[in-house]
């Protein structure tokens, strides 16, 4: 079996990964850590920053920096989780793609390779609201979906 773990950098996705380790150990499964980066998120953050601060002449520059930060930070997250998997001797790989989060997740999850998708119950905005992604993919993702908290 192959397990797809959705990593968005939140504490909850870390917990999802921990849960997936347990499952992978029992089912002798392979794990793929999967993250999607959406350039529009960087655009929105840059725009909000400049709208709040009023420093807009370097908008493009901010966007580039935020985009770079986003890539590095998600890579860092995946690596720290990967090191945990190595300690447990589980086959695990990571994958980072760019695009619209919902579309990319569905494309990957529904590729027919996976027997389970694992994700956190909440996103980066914390416990305030249920993960938006869950609402978006809950109906159309074909493998069973494990929502961890």
């Amino acid at each position, binding site marked *: *079996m192959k397990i797809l773990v959705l990593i968005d950098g939140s*504490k909850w996705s*870390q*917990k999802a990964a*921990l*849960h997936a*380790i*347990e*499952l992978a150990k*029992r*089912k002798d499964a392979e794990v793929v850590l999967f993250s999607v980066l959406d350039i529009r998120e960087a655009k929105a953050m840059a725009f909000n920053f400049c709208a709040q601060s009023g420093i807009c002449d370097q908008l493009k520059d901010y966007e580039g920096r935020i985009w770079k930060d986003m890539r590095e930070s998600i890579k860092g997250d995946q690596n720290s989780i990967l090191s945990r998997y190595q300690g447990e001797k589980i086959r695990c790989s990571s994958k980072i793609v760019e695009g619209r989060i919902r579309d990319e997740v569905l494309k990957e999850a529904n590729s027919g390779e996976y*027997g*389970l998708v694992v994700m956190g*119950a909440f996103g980066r905005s*914390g416990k305030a609201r*249920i993960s938006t992604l*869950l*609402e978006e993919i*809950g*109906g*159309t993702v074909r*493998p*069973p*979906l*494990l*929502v*961890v*908290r």
Partner: protein
Amino acid sequence: MGYSSSLIQRKFKDIVGRRYDSVLKEYREFLLTEEEVLVPEVRSILMPLDFFVHDITNEAIDVLSAYDATISLAYITDAGVVDLLERALNHSSTEEFQAKKEEYGRKLLKRTTAKLEEHGLSTQTRMFVGHKGDDVVQMAKNHDMVALCRRYADGESTDASISPIVLRICQRVETPALIY
């Protein structure tokens, strides 16, 4: 010894007041505590069923079999619908409806139990009239996981969305949820 210790206590209170409590709360929000690093043992899984759940997929069973857990199947008939029928029609048609539903439920439970046990999972069943959302959230408190069909409590809608009740349950339970 006693004096110096209570002196430090008093001074601490006077210097810091309630600030330390708020600091602790802030830390708890984002620190993965030791307890959280341990994945909680899953010993019992609640699996609500209703008229709209036709089958459990093999993939879902495959995942469930990873846990050494007892699966509690619960067939729930919506109390609201029963109430509505009672008011709109008459008592005998309501009873007829309930009897039919019960028969359907028994069959579904039997079929599901058989399928799960075939894969070596132990089960227990119950059937009742209640609220499909609130009652599941309530019952989930005594279980380590809930397994929900994405069509549960949805009506026969044809679009590929997830049932809003399932989302609501996901939001409110404290346990992991498997959606299949």
